[in-house]
């Protein structure tokens, strides 16, 4: 303890801490963790946004459970919303309407719940791409990548089950499509559907079943996974971007107490407040407009939440193929877009860290992040996935677009089918090119320094541009580029002529490795950089006498050069106080 005055409250706090410590050994943990260092970067807040919106989802969700009734018992609507007066509706829909119109604060909480759910899913998605593009999933964080992927899937499950609870026309239509998908599952489809819905669609059980899943099972799994996720972040310590003094063996940033507590704690309130303000003024999911669910009505032009929309788009773009084999039906038109495609994408995403490790043969720990440009193939793959997703999502709204732009739906579908194949490939090629040209620029900067824009005429009559050395910080960033080289082809047999048993898998790894690392701009060697530095110094030597002369000059607006008065005279000739050399 220092000499600072200790207040009464602090004394009480200290004795409470002792009380707890004598029982659970907590001070030892604090001594190791209270000043844990966290690096600072805006993109590290994405995961925080996800976490905080989840807390908001939990709080608002618990409030909603106090009023919501997960029952499809029929009631006659008799609330303040006039257009539905006298209509027979389910108790679930009735209670959601009461939350919206009768409970003061109910609509606000419903809208906070829905908005925070959207924030949650968006933040998870963007966070995942941050991790992907910077290579934060590399050793030792592969397992946390898997936990994160599972969290993302659980978030979708939470969103979908919640969307179905109000039992309005939209939520029922979503469930109907799910039923169609379950029916399409080979062999067990009809039984699975009857078990899920308690008989035929829609039945009377699905709302109460989804309710339990929505408020208990899925949030429980999410809480568990978030705990594991954060514990791993804690033990492994956060990754950091390259910079001066940052290595794989340290972490540079601010200590948890006090800076990070204030920043991260404050950030929770910022997110919560922002969501609440949005929920106060921007309407979302106005269930009263859609009306109650009935299986023979649908409204055109309505859209699912964005994270489901891409599957709807995939359903639309898929050609109508159905196989009938020995009288059994396999609906590829449904299975491929909604089961096979998402399955493949998720599997590919989950195993990506191991694929990359296999192709690099790299067993080191990585704590300094890659700049996306320095992993061009990985970055290109990520952009390709985003473009693929966006096209499917656009496909999910193709009717709205077709009406908006007066195009035929037929044209839209064919256009999007081709786009789905061509644009991601194009995105891959373009992204990779951009990465490589950025690498080239980095190399030039390291070799020749920063271009200053100042042109010199040498005594020989030659013109040169003066370069300035890049500053320490930038140099550290530029020099962080890893030398990833493709793995060599494995030998077919050893020197004694014995066949190499790992030849085949080795060749495959080498092939993948070539795909990932073939294209790169070599980082300059130490010697080259040194040589470049000397060149910059030489330019400096040329320029120094000129600069010295300039120092004593005053450059007027019209470009005429005046001798600078010894004492700072009133500004008569120039308003450019220091006679800037940049004007010469």
């Amino acid at each position, binding site marked *: 303890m220092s000499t600072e005055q200790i207040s009464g409250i602090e004394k009480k706090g200290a004795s409470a801490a002792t009380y707890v410590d004598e029982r659970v050994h907590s001070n030892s943990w604090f001594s190791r963790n209270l000043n844990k260092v966290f690096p600072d970067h805006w993109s590290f807040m994405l995961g925080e946004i996800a976490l905080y919106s989840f807390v908001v989802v939990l709080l608002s969700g618990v409030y909603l459970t106090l009023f919501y009734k997960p029952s499809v018992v029929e009631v006659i609507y008799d609330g*303040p919303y006039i257009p539905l007066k006298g209509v027979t509706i389910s108790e679930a829909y009735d209670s959601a309407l009461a939350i919206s*119109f009768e409970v003061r604060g109910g609509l606000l909480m419903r809208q906070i719940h829905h908005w925070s759910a959207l924030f949650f899913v968006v933040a998870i998605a963007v966070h995942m791409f941050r991790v992907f593009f910077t290579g934060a999933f590399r050793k030792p964080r592969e397992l946390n990548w898997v936990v994160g992927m599972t969290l993302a899937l659980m978030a979708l499950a939470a969103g979908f089950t919640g969307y179905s609870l109000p039992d309005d026309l939209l939520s029922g239509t979503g469930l109907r499509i799910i039923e169609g998908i379950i029916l399409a599952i080979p062999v067990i489809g009809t039984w699975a*559907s009857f078990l899920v819905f308690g008989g035929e669609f829609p039945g009377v059980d699905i709302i109460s079943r989804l309710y339990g899943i929505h408020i208990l099972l899925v949030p429980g799994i999410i809480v568990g996974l978030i705990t594991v996720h954060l514990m791993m972040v804690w033990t492994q310590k956060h990754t950091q971007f390259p910079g001066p003094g940052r290595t794989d063996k340290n972490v540079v940033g601010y200590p948890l107490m006090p800076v990070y507590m204030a920043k991260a704690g404050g950030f929770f309130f910022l997110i919560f*407040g922002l*969501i*609440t303000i949005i929920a106060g*003024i921007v309407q979302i999911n106005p269930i009263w407009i859609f009306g109650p669910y009935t299986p023979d*009505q649908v409204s055109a032009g309505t859209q699912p939440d964005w994270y489901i929309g891409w599957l709807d788009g995939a359903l639309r773009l898929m050609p109508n193929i159905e196989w009938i084999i020995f009288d059994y039906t396999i609906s590829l038109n449904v299975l491929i877009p909604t089961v096979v495609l998402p399955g493949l994408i998720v599997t590919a995403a989950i195993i990506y860290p191991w694929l990359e490790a296999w192709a690099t043969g790299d067993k080191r720990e990585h704590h300094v992040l890659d700049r996306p440009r320095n992993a061009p193939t990985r970055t290109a793959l990520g952009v390709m996935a985003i473009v693929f997703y966006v096209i499917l999502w656009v496909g999910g709204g193709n009717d709205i677009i077709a009406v908006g732009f007066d195009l035929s739906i037929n044209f839209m579908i064919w256009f999007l089918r081709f786009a789905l194949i061509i644009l991601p490939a194009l995105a891959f090629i373009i992204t990779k090119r951009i990465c490589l040209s950025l690498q080239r620029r980095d190399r030039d900067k390291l070799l020749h320094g920063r271009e200053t824009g100042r042109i010199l005429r040498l005594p020989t009559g030659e013109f040169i541009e003066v370069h300035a050395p890049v500053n320490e*910080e930038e140099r550290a960033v530029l020099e962080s580029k890893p030398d990833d080289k493709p793995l060599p082809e494995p030998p077919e047999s050893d020197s004694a002529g014995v066949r190499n048993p790992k030849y085949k898998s080795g060749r495959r790894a080498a092939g993948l490795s070539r795909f990932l690392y073939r294209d790169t701009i070599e980082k300059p060697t130490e010697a080259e950089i040194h040589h470049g530095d000397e060149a910059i110094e030489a330019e400096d030597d040329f320029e120094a006498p000129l600069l010295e002369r300039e120092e004593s000059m005053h450059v007027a607006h019209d470009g005429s050069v005046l001798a600078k008065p010894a004492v700072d005279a009133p500004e008569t000739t120039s308003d450019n106080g220091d006679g800037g050399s940049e004007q010469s």
Partner: protein
Amino acid sequence: MSDEITGTEPGQEVAPSDGDTKALRPGEWPPADVEHHLRRTDTDPKAQARAVRQVATMFMLSAVMVVLFIVAFIAIPRDAVVSIPFIGPISALNSAMGLTFGLAIFLIGAGAVHWAKKLMSNVEVVQERHPMKSTEDETELAADIYEVGKEQSTWAKFPIIRRTMLAAMALVPIPFIVSLRDLWIQPADVGTPSAELRRTIWEPGMRLVTDITYQPIKADEIPTGGLVNAVPENLREVEEDDHNLNARAKAAVIVVRMLPEEIQSQQSPEGTDWGYEGILCFSKICTHVGCPISLYQQRTHLLLCPCHQSTFDLSDSAEVVFGPAYRRMPQLPIEVDDEGYLVAVSDFPEPVGPSFWEISRP
């Protein structure tokens, strides 16, 4: 992890980048080797005092917002509406509560972040990392402990215990899975799921009635080019008995009328008519994944599903002309009864709704 207890050895001398050496206190990490930027609040006491005022003001305003929230809660009627520029008319109570509560929360965050940025230390510090891998000694000790435990457990010694236990563990989840069977309690008069899916409540002689008012439909009430949404006459009673919407989800139909010469084909056997003087009746439930369809273009006789735009030509046996659906929309054979009302001749000859595994079984 024990080496993380303090930043460095207490009293260790370090040289921060600004040149002067000072001793680190226990619990302090050494500053990072980067330039430390002094803020206005570090150098100018006035700026510092201003920042302190700003932070305190934000916390105070947050409390004011809580008071305003309570005022709004009590004073604003539930049905009052305000119009917000660019957003439109919305509930006044909701927006007032959202704004006051939201600002009350937001201002706490803004105050804390401002405090951290302007007044708390902004010196970046360095903490060491240690490899995730445990030390050789730790790993060896863990292996030793495992060996001792294994021996003491007699796990390796009595394979019969090992095998029977593994078998028992593998089987013990089965009761739980079996218990899920009654997620669907199969009524005595009900067949397999696929048999149920093939059947609707349409019967020979059942009248078609309009879907909202339940009026029987006379053939001559339907104009050429018209479309009527219909359900079976007994649907209301069935729904009252069953307390569910299952019957509706399969039995809903659309009735359209075209000129008889416009009809190219029907799903009835060659040369027979499942319609009546150009009136044809089809299932309303899309064969793709089950959305109800009612977008009908009378000129082309095309029926378009709003969900994924499958398009069916009603003048040509409702065959798929476009989109992801594979099967045509099943046709309901109809005729008129003695009083001139439309009635079903039978149930649908083909299953309605989405395809399933057993759908093409005879």
